[in-house]
């Protein structure tokens, strides 16, 4: 019953955050600040993870291709498909749910605990719009980060494949060009946009409606990460069925 009430509250929050918008001159600077914090601030970890994930996928594919009839270019092909379809949009989003999500929950939760949200409300500011809306808009640039993750992941695969002696540069490049379907990129970006909305709103919900003190801020961050990850995994299944099925 509690879960149903929470889901209801979440959708009420979504409706409320579009009401009574904050002055554009202020909102503009908030959005730019959030882009810097949430998107540019995450590029380092995204690049790091993508590079090694691409590398691992390549090595594992190469080690499992023992049949001499299977062309070596399949290593590049498998790396590209895995990175573009799943690892870049979904795996990175799970990482972002931890990194960005816990930051969002703890920052909003701390504002709740220290009555800063009450202060906004007393002034007549729509605190949901002021705090959550800029995060949603900033994370609409998330596909840009995913595009970098795709590029770096495939590059990581090339480095691991070529320098690890698993494949040649020519066959890897042949593999990543093989049967390329541009719609897969569109599919990945659609998923990214939806995951970005989830990463911005579920942690905000847990931070905004939390009760208690510093300990509860920590607990709310953990709960937010769990529910954001669950939502991403379920949506990943649904979107894959809808867009590729």
């Amino acid at each position: 019953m509690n879960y149903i009430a929470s889901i209801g509250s979440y959708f009420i929050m979504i409706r409320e955050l579009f009401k009574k918008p904050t002055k554009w001159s202020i909102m503009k600077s908030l959005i730019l600040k959030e882009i810097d914090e949430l998107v540019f601030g995450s590029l380092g970890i995204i690049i790091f993870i993508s590079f090694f994930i691409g590398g691992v996928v390549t090595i594992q594919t190469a080690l499992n291709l023992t049949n001499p009839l299977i062309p070596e270019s399949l290593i590049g092909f498998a790396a590209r498909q895995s990175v573009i379809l799943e690892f870049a949009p979904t795996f990175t989003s799970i990482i972002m749910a931890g990194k960005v999500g816990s930051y969002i929950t703890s920052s909003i939760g701390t504002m709740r605990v220290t009555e800063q949200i009450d202060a906004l409300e007393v002034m007549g500011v729509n605190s949901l719009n002021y705090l959550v809306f800029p995060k949603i808009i900033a994370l609409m640039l998330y596909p840009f980060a995913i595009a970098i993750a795709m590029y770096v992941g495939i590059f990581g695969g090339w480095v691991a494949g070529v320098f690890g002696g698993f494949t040649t540069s020519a066959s890897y490049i042949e593999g990543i060009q093989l049967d390329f379907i541009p719609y897969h990129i569109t599919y990945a970006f659609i998923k990214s946009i939806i995951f970005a909305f989830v990463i911005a709103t579920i942690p905000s919900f847990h931070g905004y409606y939390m009760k208690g003190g510093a300990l509860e801020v920590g607990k709310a961050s953990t709960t937010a990460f769990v529910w954001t990850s669950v939502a991403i995994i379920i949506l990943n299944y649904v979107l894959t069925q809808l867009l590729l099925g």
Partner: protein
Amino acid sequence: MIEVNNIHKSFGDSHILKGISTSFEKGKTNLIIGQSGSGKTVFLKCLLGLFTPDEGTISYNGNIYDDLSASQQRNLRQEMGMVFQGSALFDSLTVEGNVMFPLEMFTKQSKSEMQDRVDTVLKRVNLIDAHHKFPSEISGGMQKRVAIARAIVMNPKYLFCDEPNSGLDPKTAILIDNLILEITKEYDITTVINTHDMNSVMEIGEKIIFLKNGHKEWEGTNKEIFKTDNAAVTDFVYSSELFKKVRQMYIEERN
């Protein structure tokens, strides 16, 4: 003027406010006192519109809050200033940014006009060199003064303070009390202060409401509170050894 008529507020099974009626006059410092858990904070949050009473009405200059449209309620809130117990300054903004925040949000003033207003109110609360410091870089007393400056920057009609002296040393607490009293007179605003600090009661309690278990137990002035025969009030007022001795001396002097 704020008029409160028979307000009730419950959270689940807990009946916190049990039919409080009173009024707060313009140009006066009105104090709400009572033990922890007596319903002071809930009452103050009802006055601020942060909690909606289950029953009863609160009216501001004759306008019942619940009868106002959403936009009228928002406009009314812009006439309120609030000093929170922990100051509630925005961590990401400097002192100047905190005080300028309501001006940027709700006025169409130019940057220089806003800057002038911020300088004026910061000077009024005796904060001159702290413009570019962040809340974490200043003392608790300074944070309270910034919170007061932020609360008065929009020339409010109503000023609410939730335990403005908590966590401050007695000397700074008196400074804050006097500052609130001076501002109340200077700006002719209705000030409501939630406190359990007896020094504040003595210094600035022009009207005092004593809450006990969600009821209004007593109402009067700082002159009257020390003479009342209400047992609950005297228990609260003379709970400290210092005040007990003062009372003893008063009784001995009278006899």
